[in-house]
Structure formats: structure tokens, C-alpha cells
């Protein structure tokens, strides 16, 4: 029920006074309500659940967490190679 999928905002428009957007999920385009993300811009990625965009996905945080593992991974590999 709480499934939410990431997609890229390709267009922002208004419908019946509600902020809406076109979202691109790797080629499949669908619409979502953007009312809860007043600051969202075209080109940003968002998580969509039941037709509503819930958050703007944060690229810096993704990079930080993946880089941390990248470094730690090298240490683990070193240990593996020595043993």
C-alpha cells in the first residue's frame, strides 16, 4: 500500500486549481499531484504514491551514502585479499 516509485518531473501545470505534473518513470509518463511539494522544479526526481508526489529526491544524500560504501568496500576487499 505504501509503495512509492521515483520519477522525473518533466512538466508542471495547474488543473482545477491544483498543482499537477507529468512524471517520467524511465519512459512511461504519468501525471501526479505536486501540491505537497511547492518548491519542486522540472528536472527534479520525486517519489510518487497513489498519484501524489511525496518528496524531492536528494541527489547529494545519495552520493554521500554511496561514496561512503565505495570507500569502505575497498577496505573490505583489502582484508579479503590479505586473508
Amino acid at each position, binding site marked *: 500500500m*505504501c509503495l512509492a516509485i521515483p520519477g522525473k518531473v518533466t512538466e508542471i501545470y495547474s488543473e482545477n486549481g*491544483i498543482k499537477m505534473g507529468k512524471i517520467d518513470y524511465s519512459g512511461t509518463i504519468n501525471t501526479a499531484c505536486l501540491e505537497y511539494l511547492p518548491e519542486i522544479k522540472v528536472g527534479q526526481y520525486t517519489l510518487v504514491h497513489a*498519484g*501524489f508526489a*511525496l518528496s524531492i*529526491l536528494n541527489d547529494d*544524500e545519495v552520493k554521500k*551514502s554511496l561514496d561512503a560504501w565505495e570507500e*569502505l568496500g575497498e577496505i573490505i576487499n583489502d582484508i579479503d585479499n590479505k586473508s
Partner: protein
Amino acid sequence: MKYLDEFRDPILAKKILAEIHKTVTKPWVIMEICGGQTHSIIRNGIDQVLPKEIELVHGPGCPVCVTPLEIIDKAIAIAGKPNVIFTSFGDMLRVPGSKKDLFMVKSEGGDVRTVYSPLEALTIAKNNPKKEVVFFAVGFETTAPGNAMAIHQAAKEGIANFSELVSHVLVPPAMEALLSSPENRVQGYLAAGHVCTIMGWEEYDPIAEKYQVPIVPTGFEPVDVLEGILLVVKQLEEGRYEVENQYLRSVKREGNQPAQELISKIYKITDRKWRGIGEIPQSGLSIREQYSAYDANLKFSVEDIQTNEPELCISGVILQGLKKPNECPAFGKECTPTTPLGATMVSSEGACAAYYKYQRMGK
């Protein structure tokens, strides 16, 4: 796909798993709250590769599973009324009520329609002004913003033939109820990433403190789940109990504030019964008096409902993490996804359905 593939990377998953194996020295019981996470764990075989010290127990985070039988029966009664178009997310249609499910209502001629978003239900109401359109507003905090928006918009546009049958549930009170039970085995939580995307995680600080359990808001991909487990295990091994956010790309401490504001404008917090578990104080949402015109509970009178739970089903115990689906005597015998006895076998996020689909048949 960006933001998915990185978190499905098998090499990274192996690194994190190695780190978990290195960290753990004692047995620990960790509960993932959300049914989406249960499904990810079983589908990716995470339960089978973790160190034997770590036991994952599956939480009550499947709204389909915990919607009380009375409300399912009420939905079925309303959907069967002439002049009603009953709309719902698809996964509610097969949940067994006492005598039938919403699918059967449809096959008997009821106008039951699956919608993808509550705003779609509102459009149906606009296009059918002579009909009463009811939306089955079920879900956790993740789904509440959309359902709140549908009522807000109906009021703004003066759409009087729209209402919601609300059975919203809230996660933190359920987490607390499980921890305070004398039977509790949970020592650490993976909190539900999308619930926290909306609500943030401030609410968890006092729970972590009071019950001395680590709580880690966690995402849904294999890398997320493994990293969430690692963060919990590290805290347990070090004797810490804090809220630590794994799902950094989506969850902020304060959550999504515009969403929280509209939720509390439309709904108020109320006691709520959870199917199989019982009543949990202050664990649900219902429609505020100002919006009572959109409350299907008040709009439709339904004769006394006599509920009837199948005796064999132990889903309540499973939803509390006290037993595993394959310990249920009916699992895979009387109860299968095509002949479900309980909602945990119907819902794609239910623990019983996940165990059946991925063949965790037990001893």
C-alpha cells in the same frame, strides 16, 4: 532506473551484508514495520543470508491487512446500495469480509471501481452528479495526504456527491503498542520509509528513549533494507538506542509539512481497531466535524453488522511479530492466495502472501 538501480546493486548489497556479519555477536530480534519491506526482504532472500543471530519479524504495516472486518463489511454493504459508485485501491477488493468481498459485490452488479488515486474518484463524482461516489480511504500516513486532498478539493469545488469511508491507521502508536505488550520480542525497528517521508521522525525519539530500542527509518530496495539492518545491529551491539535515518534521499527530520498540515485540517486522531490486534488508542484518523458532509460513515446508514472471523486464521499473532506465517496450521493448506482466509494472505504486502509466493514453507 535512477534512484532504484543504485539500491539494487548486488555488489553493494554483499558489502553491507559482510559488514553485518562482522558486526553481530549476539542474537537480536528486529522488526520491519512496513509490509513493503517484508515483501522486499522475502523476495530478495535477505532473511536467508543474514547471520543466524538476527531474526527478522514482520510487523503490522499492511493497511489492507489491519482494516477491521466491521469496516470491510460496511464497505461491502455501501457498495451494494443502488445509486452508489464505490471506488477503492485495487488491493482492497479481494479482502474477505464476513460473507463476501468487494469483488463479489461487483460481480453481483454493484458499481465497484478501482482507482489509482483518490483524485480519480473525485473526477468520477464530478462526471456522475446523480450518483453517490464513495472512496475507501484506507492506509497509513503515506496515503493520508492524497485522501485529505480529495476532501479538501471536493469542499473547494462544491462536489456534494463525494464521500470517504475512512479507516486510516497511524504507525507510531502501533509500534508503541507492540513494545509495551508483555509478549514483546522486538529489540529494534526498521521504520517505514514512506510513512516517515510524510511525518518525519521526531515522533520516534521518545519511543526509542522510553523502550530503549533503536529505530531506523528505512527504504525499500535491498541495499536500503540491508543498510537499515546494519544500522540497527550496530546500535544494539553498542548498547545505543537512537533514531537514525537510513532513507536519507527521501526522509527529512521534519517530514513533508504541507502534507501534515492538510492531513490535520481534514482528519483528527481517533482510537482505532486493528484487525487481528484489537483497539489501539489514538492510532487512527477520522474526518473532522467541519467536513462531516464527506463522511460516508455518516452519509450511509448500514444495518447492524454481525462480523464473523475465520477461526483458523492467526493473522493477528503474525501481525504482532509473535509467529511466522508458516507456523499457521492453515498456511498453504486451507489458506492460499486463491482461497485466502485472512487479509495477510490477500494483500500483496501481507506476510502470509509473501511467504507463500517465495516458498518459505517452514519445517
